[in-house]
């Protein structure tokens, strides 16, 4: 399409423009990665400097044979998939709802997207102490008021509760993006569909949903990046427990590195997390890219 003469210099210039960002990111990711790799083969415990030397594959062996490790992988998966399902599903429905005209819609929208602006630590503290606390929590009082025994959410259903808290933070983001997409849908298109006799469900299924697919990919993309490394919410509410019921990979590494100060073991965990991140990224990117190129 373009003349070759313009393409050629453009490539080299393109590289010059791209390189600062790439180089700096490369340094940022490679240097710590190499150090992490190095530590992962060493005995390195912050609180016990007497323990030193080459550890061989010990750190990996101890991590991979640790029964907590599989559980934490599973929990990571549950958390990512669960929150994505809630925010994409709920987000789509809410986007359609807040696209309808009703009294005070602008204010209602602002209220709905508010949790996205809140620090993860603060939202976890709020939910744990003010909302779900089995004695003082608002939800517990409501349950008592109607004659039910309050449920101790974080002890009985730790994973589901954390998922709920994280979804509360990220659902608004999905609503924000999807609402934007719904609004950009041509109203003439919708009108035409209605003229053709399409019902609300058919409109949703055949017009709105396909139109949203790109926005949904954006939501999935950005949220996955954050959900894979969810940490503050777990640390504040359950500290990964009871047992390891709510420990994800990020928290497992944290507990190795900073509760047990085993830098060697944590580094092995870090290396495994990097491998997983790249696998996820590869899948995600393929799916996302296909959708975005279209």
């Amino acid at each position: 399409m373009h003349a070759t003469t313009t393409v050629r210099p453009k490539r080299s210039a393109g590289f010059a423009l791209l390189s600062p960002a790439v180089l700096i990111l490369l340094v940022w990711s490679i240097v710590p990665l190499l150090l992490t790799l190095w530590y992962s083969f060493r005995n390195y415990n912050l609180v016990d400097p007497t323990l030193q030397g080459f550890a061989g594959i010990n750190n990996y062996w101890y991590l991979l044979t640790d029964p907590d490790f599989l559980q934490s992988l599973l929990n990571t998966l549950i958390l990512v998939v669960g929150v994505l399902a809630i925010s994409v599903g709920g987000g789509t429905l809410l986007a359609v709802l807040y696209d309808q005209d009703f009294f005070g819609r602008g204010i209602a929208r602002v209220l709905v997207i508010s949790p996205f602006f809140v620090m993860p630590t603060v939202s976890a503290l709020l939910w744990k102490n003010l909302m779900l606390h089995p004695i003082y929590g608002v939800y517990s009082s409501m349950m008592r008021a109607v004659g039910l025994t309050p449920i101790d959410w974080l002890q009985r259903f730790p994973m589901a509760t954390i998922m709920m808290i994280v979804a509360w933070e990220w659902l608004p983001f999905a609503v924000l993006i999807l609402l934007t997409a719904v609004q950009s849908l041509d109203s003439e298109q919708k009108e035409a569909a209605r003229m053709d006799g399409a019902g609300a469900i058919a409109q949703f299924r055949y017009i709105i949903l396909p139109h949203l697919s790109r926005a949904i990919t954006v939501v999935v993309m950005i949220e996955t990046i954050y959900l894979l490394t969810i940490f503050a919410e777990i640390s504040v509410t359950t500290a990964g427990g009871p047992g390891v019921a709510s420990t994800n990979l990020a928290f497992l590494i944290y507990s190795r590195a900073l509760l047990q100060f085993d830098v060697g073991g944590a580094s092995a965990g870090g290396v495994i997390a990097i491998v997983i991140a790249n696998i996820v990224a590869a899948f995600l990117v393929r799916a996302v890219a296909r959708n975005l190129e279209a």
Partner: protein
Amino acid sequence: MGTCLAAAHAESELTIATVNNGDMIIMRQLSSEFEKTHPGIHLKWVTLEENVLRQRVTTDIATGAGQFDIMTIGNYEVPIWAKQKWLAELHPAADYDMQDILPAVRQGLSVNGQIYALPFYAESVMTYYRTDLFKKAGLTMPESPTYDEIRGFADKITDKSNQVYGICLRGKPGWGENMAYVTSLVNTFGGQWFGMGWKPLIDSPAWKAAINWYVSALREDGPPGATSNGFNENLALFASGHCGMWIDSTVAGGLLFDPKQSQVADKVGFAPSPKGAYGKGPTWLWSWNLAIPASSKHTEDAQTFITWATSKEYVKLVAERKGWVAVPAGTRASTYKTPEYQKAAPFASFVQHAIETADPNGQTAQPRPYGGAQFVGIPQFQALGTQVGQTIAATLSGQVTVDQALASAQSSVTRTMRQSGYSH
């Protein structure tokens, strides 16, 4: 020129890392007095919650980053860190009156006769109970209760429909939270972490008996959400009238008897920590201390500050400004000799006795290679305590049985000890 040089020499800035506990917050408020009398020294405070603080200061000192000049650390860390040469030696002046510091506390902060930290406040353990609930149920607290008796009392005073729970205990996982309590509970039931040769003894009958007591007491008579209750959470529960009994640190006394912070201030009774089947064993002793990392560039000025903050004069200053009930407890004999303190704190002599007789190196049922009553004095204990603490917490929520939990704790402790080269 001369004054300029002098000023440049005298000016220094100390960064102090501390916990967000009540006594430290008072210290921070009153530190302006220190800055007034020491114009060359400026103080910068980093106040964090306990877990975060511990993580921050440990990373800092272990990597020699030198961000802090003064750290607030426990008597668990002091000897370990001193042996690793991470802490500066302290040489308080003669008028500091080192002999006034309770010997049990002092010993915990010395290695080979050299002191490495000064105690800010210290605690042992006791049983708090609600006198009104005991009276209503027609019960009396014996002078030296046993765990069996405590369990019986808890059953009788629990009234779940009014949200009164017979017994509150630490359930939040962590070596300094549930495991501090559980370790001392296990000791009195005749259990211990390790036998000689660092052989883990967690799947022993004594542990089983102790954990069974703990789990059934909390499940049947405890508050909901026990796995998220640490010291602070239980303090809030007791202070707002939701607990019938609570076995925990003596430092809670000053807060529970303070009508400004507690709705049950006039209904609190206290008794010694209960005894289990073994009865003897090491006794709980904890102190929060101020220490100077070896990496600090202001060692002299830092020592000036920590001797001030742990001095008799400081105790008097707190008494003047905040009242005697608020003074830092458990460190100085002179505090307990003060009639005003005895009057303001009805538990004073009780606590003094508890701390003076506390012996963290007391005998366990079988010989042991480590010291400490509510912890094991080795660097790996943070790792062990955190792991086992999670496993114990899982028994409270009913995910695993006590037997399963202890078996898995035994194997994870064995793994960690092997990994760190203690046993093969």
